[in-house]
Structure formats: C-alpha cells, structure tokens
C-alpha cells in the first residue's frame, strides 16, 4: 500500500462508501492489482471498469466489505485463499498540521451504510471504458467482451 492513495483508490472508496479498514486484505489486493495492471497497460483505471469485474458485498452482521469476482468475468484471482492474524494489527494514518487536506477525498471513518454494488454490464460502460476492456482482452488477460 502506498500513501497518499491514488485517485482511483479514493474514488473507489467513495463509491463504495467505506473506510479503508473495512475492506478485507484480499479485496484491497484486488484494488492494488487492478491499479497496477492498468498502469502497465497505459490505461486510466476507473471505478466503473472495476465494478464491471468485481461486485461489492457487505457482511451481514458487521461492517466489513468484500470485493468478489463476477462469475464468468474473472480478471484477478485472490492473492491468498485465507488471511489470518491481521485483525487487531492496525496502524493509524494522520495528516500533518501543515497539509490537513492530505486525507481528503475518501471516507476516513467506519461507515455504517456501505454501498453494496452489483456488477456493471459492459453495455453501460462509457466508450473509453469499453476501449479499456478491449485492451485488456487484447493483452490476453481475459476473454474478449461481446
């Protein structure tokens, strides 16, 4: 993880309406891998493309959030099947007095009403995002879109 967050990371957290700590480790690994993959391909990552490949689910009895591959549209696989021992091992990140805006642009604190998001269909993506999906297909990382 790198600080400060990228524009994509900030926009995604805002869209999901969740604090960073509410996402499970594997879910954040998806976010980072997606960001890195698009950087490698020379495309700008967007929240809409991300939601095309991943669904956002809330845990029933608590405030944790998971990101899951959309069936039949798997772009990335989980880094590790199960992480253990990470709960209870937290840092806190503060902004300095000099630049209080350094943490602007995404939810800082735990949110009760996180947003569960269904996958966005290809047809509802913007033309630019559809082009990015085709670049992904040409790069051989997923099956071609319709």
């Amino acid at each position, binding site marked *: 993880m790198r600080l400060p967050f990228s524009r994509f990371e900030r926009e995604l957290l805002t869209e999901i309406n969740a604090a960073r700590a509410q996402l499970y480790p594997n879910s954040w690994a998806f976010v980072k891998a997606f960001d890195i993959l698009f950087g490698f391909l020379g495309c700008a990552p967007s929240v809409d493309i991300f939601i095309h490949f991943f669904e956002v689910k809330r845990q029933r009895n608590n*405030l944790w959030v998971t990101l899951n591959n959309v069936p039949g549209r798997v772009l990335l696989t989980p880094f590790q099947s199960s*992480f253990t021992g990470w709960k209870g091992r937290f840092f806190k990140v503060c*902004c*300095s*007095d000099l630049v209080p805006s350094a943490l602007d642009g995404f939810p800082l604190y735990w949110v009760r009403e996180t947003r569960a998001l269904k996958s966005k269909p290809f047809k509802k993506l913007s033309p630019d995002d559809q082009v990015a999906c085709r670049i992904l297909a040409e790069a051989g990382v997923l099956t071609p879109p319709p």
Partner: protein
Amino acid sequence: MSSRIPPPRVKPKDLYTWASSELLDECSCLLSTMAIRKHKGESCSYNHRAFARRHDDDITVLPCTLGEPVCGDERANDGVPLFYIYQVVF
C-alpha cells in the same frame, strides 16, 4: 511549577454509540519485537516499528495506542483527522 492535566478518558461506547460490541472490541494489539522474531507462520504481520516514523511532510503513520478501537474518529485523536489500516504484507 504547573502540573499537566491529563485529558479526560474517552469511553468508546459513549462516542460511537452506533458501533457493535464486536467492532468496539476490535482493538489494535501490536506485536512485540520478540513475538515477531519468534513468529514462524505466514509473514502477514509486519513490524510496526518500521512504520512508526514520518514518511513525508503530509502524512504520519503511527502505531495505535493500546485498546484503541479501530472505528475511532478524530474525537479520540485530539481532533486530528486519521484513518486506520491493518498490518498485512502481501
């Protein structure tokens, strides 16, 4: 000679009335250096001391105080905005 008055003790249950007991109990209990040296399992825990420093002029990464719930906000941090991240190495 003036003695410093300690800040009033914060009760997370009073501050975060919306939070479940499970979440309030989710406190940071950082590993000791000895525990890290003895750790034989997956390398998913990181030595917080490596991060407890100022990274640049804008952002500071700090270990949590003992018993600090991870659903806290700036009210429990002298009014300074913050967010929490967990220690995981991929």
